[in-house]
């Protein structure tokens, strides 16, 4: 090897170096092109393509060193910002942190001091977090085209943490761009989305984490209704209770009478198909107080995104949600409980 180098002609050496530099520069050129595509394209598909390539782009080259550049987490945020921009949503603003050379986002109704960022967990799933709370509000996987909201974090952050400082209208406005992002991913890019407790669909079931439910928990809601103008009714087949709220809004806590396992779930129905379980927690003190006081018994299932074809996903143990029943999501959107694997 050393011999070869010695015997190679100078021109050959220069030529080899030039080739290596060209490779480095080409890499840089690709990078620049992808950045431009991410920043300027008006096509959702091209935007996703750029983001997807950039998050795995390896800019390291022995011969060509590039100056300060962005991190994969920034591309997720830029993807979100640009997609919302395409849908004329201006509530979610991307800002650059000049000290750290990275990006963060703010939401209009929460002001400038509340910052959102993406982080990437051990199995390559991006998570949108609020920088103080650190809990994943939503999980995003570009490769598998899936987005899922994290029910537990939605409650912890929007219902508990923000409730002290913000009105419920501000909080509702803050959730809107997150929902708009999910809907845009589904509509423009065929993502499979799981809106969790933000889902307004009347048929949606929100299964409880606990396998059984003590009826005393429902008794407490019944007793609490005496202070309000709302009534808690018994379901006709004695399979749960229904809380009658305003304008035809109904919240059921029930199980399917034909279901042997008696899996309890929440269901929220309203005439316009516009109200989610999250909305009830936000707007109705009765529901919120009861849910938070009995949260251990009432917590709605909250599953992270894990993929069967991703080896590292099986090894995640320090994830705070790992103690909760874990499921595996398949790229087709089907879900398998991990303990059946």
């Amino acid at each position: 090897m050393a011999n070869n180098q010695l015997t190679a002609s100078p021109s050959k050496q220069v030529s080899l170096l030039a080739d290596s530099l060209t490779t480095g520069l080409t890499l840089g050129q690709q990078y620049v092109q992808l950045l431009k595509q991410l920043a300027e394209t008006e096509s959702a598909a091209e935007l996703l393509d750029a983001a997807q390539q950039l998050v795995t782009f390896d800019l390291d080259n022995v011969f060509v060193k590039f100056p300060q550049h962005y991190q994969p987490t920034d591309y997720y945020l830029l993807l979100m910002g640009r997609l919302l921009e395409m849908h004329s949503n201006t509530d979610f603003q991307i800002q650059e942190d000049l000290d750290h050379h990275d990006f963060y986002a703010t939401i209009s109704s929460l002001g400038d001091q509340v910052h959102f960022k993406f982080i990437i967990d051990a199995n390559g799933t991006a998570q949108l977090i609020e920088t103080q709370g650190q809990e994943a509000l939503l999980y995003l996987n570009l490769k598998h085209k899936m987005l899922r909201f994290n029910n537990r974090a939605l409650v912890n952050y929007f219902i508990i943490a923000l409730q002290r400082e913000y009105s419920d209208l501000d909080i509702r406005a803050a959730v809107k761009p997150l929902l708009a992002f999910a809907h845009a991913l589904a509509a423009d890019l065929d993502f499979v989305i799981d809106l969790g407790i933000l889902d307004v669909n009347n048929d949606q079931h929100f299964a409880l984490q606990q396998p059984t439910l003590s009826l005393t928990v429902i008794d407490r809601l019944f007793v609490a209704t005496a202070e309000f103008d709302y009534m808690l009714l018994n379901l006709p087949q004695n399979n749960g209770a229904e809380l009658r709220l305003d304008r035809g809004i109904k919240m059921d806590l029930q199980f399917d009478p034909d279901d042997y396992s008696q899996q309890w779930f929440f269901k929220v129905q309203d005439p316009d198909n516009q109200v989610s379980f999250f909305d009830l927690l936000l707007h109705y003190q009765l529901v919120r107080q009861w849910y938070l006081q009995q949260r251990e018994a009432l917590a709605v299932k909250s599953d992270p995104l894990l993929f069967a074809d991703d080896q590292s996903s099986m090894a995640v143990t320090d994830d705070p949600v790992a103690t909760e029943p874990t499921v595996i999501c398949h790229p087709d959107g089907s879900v398998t409980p991990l303990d059946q694997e």
Partner: protein
Amino acid sequence: MATEQHQQSAQEVAALINNQIVNKIDFLQQFKAAVADHQDRRIYQLLDNQRYAKEIEHREQQSNNQSVMSLVDDLVDQLSHYLSVNLIDYLGKAYPFFYYEEYQTGHYRIYFGNWWDRREFGELDVLNVRFLFNQDEYAKLQKSFELVHENKRYNSDKIDKISQENDRLQDLIDHQREREERRAKLQDQLKEVSSHSGIWESSKNKESRQNIVDALQKLESEEQESRTAAQTIKDNEQVVLALSKENTILSYEQKSIIDTFGSFEDFELANRNLYASYLASLNDDEKQVNTDGE
């Protein structure tokens, strides 16, 4: 002569029987027709002409002909079932908070409400168009209407008492350390005082020694109570929940009555007039058909 008389009376008897049979046939034919056409008002009239005359036609002292009415005595369950259809339909609108369960043919249990927890409230007497409320349950409702004026609920006093007891028990649990300190102090004092005891013990010394012993005994009994206090508090909370549930049920019932009738008094008035109101509503329905022949 005797035979003739007997014959004559036999003829009278035959006439009487004939007359009675005609009456019975007539009654049954009217009944048959009324049932065939589902003329419920007419059926109610045939079942109790006296009440019908009084309450609907405002004619007093029409007596019932028991001899014909007893003809359908063995059909009461079936008739009750038959007449319940329209009656329960009417009650569904007039008393939207009552629910009925036919636990055997023609017999109906009343439930107050369809809420999470509700009470069985008595029975529906279809043939007489009246509620037979369970007197104990009814008295609770009446009482809770009275208590509204005092801004109280049916179980308020009981709940307050148990809550105070729980506060006291919680206090015992919270002050365990203070009790121990106090006991140590008292025991020291007792040692001190006891050293001055003996045959020449002053009455003052004797008294203070007794006081210390009493205080120590009181502490000991508090300590014993605090050992079971946590469980007692839990048990009491269950009792409070049950009492609160009963309060909630009663407040739902009150609310329903006020929403529908305006007041408890108006509810009771409606109950008393139920027969007349119901039959009047049937009258309206039948005017259009007018197969009544009246």
